[in-house]
């Protein structure tokens, strides 16, 4: 067998390979300089991500390329999602630099785990095979479990990490089980092969649907959809805010890629089945996420429930690709691009919202209760205005990006004939508006309880301001990002 070995084309996987090599460098640098020059690991991680971004741009090919015997795909969608991932991770690094330093968490392990988690996401984004997908997912998840527990002296972190690990392992198991079922029925692990087999219609339907249920459950867990959402509030709440920000941003992009690759590129033949499953979960997520968020007093927990509802809206777009049992490429692209756009918009808003928490935190103090936002307008009108933009954007009020994300998704859903579902979704976003309004109320209408000056460094201040302006600016001119999302999808398999 060894004689038949053909060296795979490494070119499409160049960013991944580069990041992997750089991770060794970070490891070594941290080993020798970690004790004295802590900033080096952080710097090197940022440089690695920038380098990976550069390589991704340079190696970008308008045509999809398969490599590693069809296990790995490099298309425009992958390039776009990867670039967004680097971007989100970089933002997280800048936001959290001071937070980590204040708490002594800026150790080499942190950056290493961040790199590996990013690598895992990149592999998920480029997966064209069940095994590659699983590999990427596990690499990401295991790194994230470690990150949640990075503050080993905190019982809350450890507890969150345990919950995340146990539930995450279960979800991975479900996913793997489902994949094995589909493999049994179709005889292929490759997404293209599975799609081919489904198209020919020779496979055993019962086994397929059985497998599909498990795969959808695995995806739903990663996206945090009801009823697989239990881990989200606890992990968001328990993890150090920097890690929460990380979990709440880039992995959503990877989870979107996973959902799209598995369900659309692989299992499109079963779309009538998964459409219903996603529909139920989307509506439940929107309902439960928005209702439960009202009861929260901790902003991290509130944002966790808000994340659940946002992923519900995203999935609403994803499942709207099929109209009355038929898939028309134009409508389908519209629907998937609305979901992609929603994910990108959400990541930007989520980074900003957690950025505000980091901005108000200082050494020895976590500004994670809603109370901490009281009277922010008196302490700093500018940051209050930025947070106001973030909150109204999440609530889906124009002129901010969050409105256009909801708009695109609703348009896709109504086009697919789900008018009632769209009405339910907007009614719950009305309920959701309440808790975003409450944050604005605390910032503007109430007197401050905490009058300490904001001590965040210049980098966090500038980044948070840019983040807020981006949410507003991309709302005034939403077309470009929408077009990029659509083009990326059109130029993929």
């Amino acid at each position, binding site marked *: 067998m060894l004689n038949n070995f053909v060296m795979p084309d490494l070119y499409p996987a160049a960013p991944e390979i580069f990041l992997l090599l750089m991770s060794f460098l970070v490891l070594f640098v941290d080993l020798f300089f970690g004790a004295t020059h802590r900033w080096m690991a952080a710097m090197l991680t940022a440089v690695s991500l920038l380098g990976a971004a550069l390589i991704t741009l340079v190696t970008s090919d308008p045509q999809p390329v398969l490599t590693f015997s069809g296990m790995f795909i490099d298309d425009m969608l992958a390039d776009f999602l990867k670039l967004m991932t680097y971007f989100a991770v970089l933002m997280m690094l800048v936001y959290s630099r001071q937070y980590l330093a204040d708490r002594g968490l800026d150790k080499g392990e942190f950056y290493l785990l961040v790199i590996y988690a990013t690598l895992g996401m990149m592999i998920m984004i480029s997966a064209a095979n069940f095994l590659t997908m699983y590999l990427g997912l596990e690499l990401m998840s295991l790194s994230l479990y470690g990150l949640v527990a990075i503050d080993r002296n905190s019982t809350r972190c450890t507890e969150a990490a345990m919950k995340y690990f146990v539930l995450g392992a279960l979800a991975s198991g479900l996913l793997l089980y489902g994949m094995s079922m589909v493999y049994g029925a179709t005889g292929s692990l490759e997404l293209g092969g599975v799609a081919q087999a489904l198209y020919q219609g020779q496979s055993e339907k019962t086994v397929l649907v059985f497998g599909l249920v498990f795969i959808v459950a695995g995806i739903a867990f990663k996206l945090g959809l009801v009823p697989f959402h239990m881990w989200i509030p606890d992990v968001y709440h328990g993890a150090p805010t920097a890690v929460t920000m990380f979990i709440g941003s880039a992995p959503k992009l990877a989870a979107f890629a996973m959902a799209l690759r598995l369900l659309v590129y692989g299992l499109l033949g079963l779309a009538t089945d998964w459409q219903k499953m996603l529909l139920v979960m989307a509506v439940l997520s929107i309902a439960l996420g928005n209702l439960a968020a009202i009861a929260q007093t901790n902003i991290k927990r509130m944002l966790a429930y808000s994340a659940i509802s946002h992923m519900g809206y995203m999935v609403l777009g994803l499942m709207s690709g099929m109209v009355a049992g038929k898939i028309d490429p134009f409508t389908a692209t519209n629907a998937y691009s609305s979901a992609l756009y929603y994910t990108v918009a959400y990541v930007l808003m989520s980074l900003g919202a957690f950025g505000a928490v980091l901005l108000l935190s200082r050494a020895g103090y976590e500004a994670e209760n809603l109370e901490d936002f009281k009277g922010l307008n008196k302490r700093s009108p500018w940051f209050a205005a930025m947070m106001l933009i973030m909150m109204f954007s999440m609530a889906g009020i124009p002129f901010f990006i969050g409105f256009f994300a909801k708009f695109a998704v609703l348009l896709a859903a109504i086009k697919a004939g789900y008018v009632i579902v769209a009405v339910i979704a907007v009614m719950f976003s009305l309920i959701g508006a309440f808790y975003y309004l409450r944050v604005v109320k605390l910032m*503007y209408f109430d007197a401050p309880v905490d009058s300490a000056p904001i001590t965040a460094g210049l980098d966090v201040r500038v980044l948070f301001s840019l983040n807020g302006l981006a949410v507003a600016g991309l709302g005034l001119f939403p077309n470009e990002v929408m077009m990029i999302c659509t083009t990326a999808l059109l130029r993929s398999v």
Partner: protein
Amino acid sequence: MNQQLLSLAIWLPILGAVPVFWAGSDRRDLVRWLALAVAVAGFLVTIPLYTGFDPKIAGMQFVEHAPWIPRFNVQYFLGVDGISMPFILLNAFITVMVVLAGWDVIEEKQAQYMGAFLVMSGLMNGIFSALDGVLFYVFFEASLIPMYIIIGVWGGPNRVYAAIKFFLYTLLGSLLMLVALIWLFLESRGSFNILDWHQLQIGMKPQILIFIAFLVSFAVKVPMWPVHTWLPDAHVEAPTGGSVVLAAIALKLGAYGFVRFSLPIVPDAAHYMANFMITLSLIAVVYIGFVALVQTDMKKLIAYSSISHMGFVTLGFFIFNQLGVEGALVQMISHGFVSAAMFLCVGVMYDRVHSRQIADYGGVVHTMPKFAALFVFFAMANSGLPATSGFVGEFMVILGAIKANFWLGFLAATTLILGAAYTLWMIKRVVYGPVGNHHVAEMQDLSSREFLFLALLALCVLAMGLYPFPFTEVMHASVDNLLKHVAVSKL
């Protein structure tokens, strides 16, 4: 320049708010004069809209057309006809009044206060001139944000409740409208152009559903009975400027929505639902009139009086004749002046005594004769006295209603009695009689600034009452066109 007048009317106040915010609340004089300059400039740029307007053309004028979101064929499409143009002027004018009214009274965060009103003014100009569904919606909903802040930050003791109630109530309506807009987009094969929608053929069932979706949205905004309950709360808690903008402009948005969306896009449903709408309007006119009678809080009284007057407006629209529709539009503009003036008058008294209760006053005429004269004049206008603007609109609507059905007109005419009753009774208790208490005895008469804005409004009210032709002239062709359009079935 003529081509970008509407853009200028929208963006000048919004961009002008940036230096006002930036000036910060510590430099009060700079902030006030800057805000006044922006507001006056904002008003001046709208004047060419009137002088350059051709009243013979029924269609849109000052049209601006540019792609905004080509991905969904959303256009930056602006234009005004005789129906919407007067409201832009009214809005820009009222903004100047609001800036003047907040000159001394607002002590906390004045920069944000002025800035919020300027932003609000620009957004509302956007609502009146948008001819693209999404653009309209975006302005419509974005205007909630400044008003939410205005009520919540500078409002009375129960401001948080009032602000959130205001926001959620209005959002409830507009979200359903969003679904309807998207449905129309898909039905018209990818167009958000409102004028295209006017020509769109729609079946009866979808027409009724769309009508209901729009109805919820606009009825909350008007507000019509029974979804009016947010208004008294919002008015009572809002600062004077907030009440003025709410009553003078924000309420008109809902009524404007009926003329721009409901009537021309779904005319058959509008006819089908007309009786229902007329019933709701009459309930607002009569029942809310009685409710206003028993109020003890002046702002609440004027708020209920606004609801009652707006009932007149919706009544005028749904009797589908020239007199009714034009009368309703005149009534909207007149109410813009009169309610603004009434709220400003209450504001003037509140600034001195810090009470809005009728019982806390009495004999104001003895200490504030100039003010009392103006207040009584506005009260007369509010109750529809001939020679004031309040009379013109009401009279036209009543005539229109009698044309449609005598008893309809009869019921509508009770407003003249009720309106006079609650307004004049309030005047009697507040302005006349012996001096009520030592607070009233210490009241200072109007400052020249206060006199300026009240006198300007009084001038408008009087001019419109004596010679309404300049207002009706510009509307005539557009209303005619609208009614012709509504008379044709789309089925």
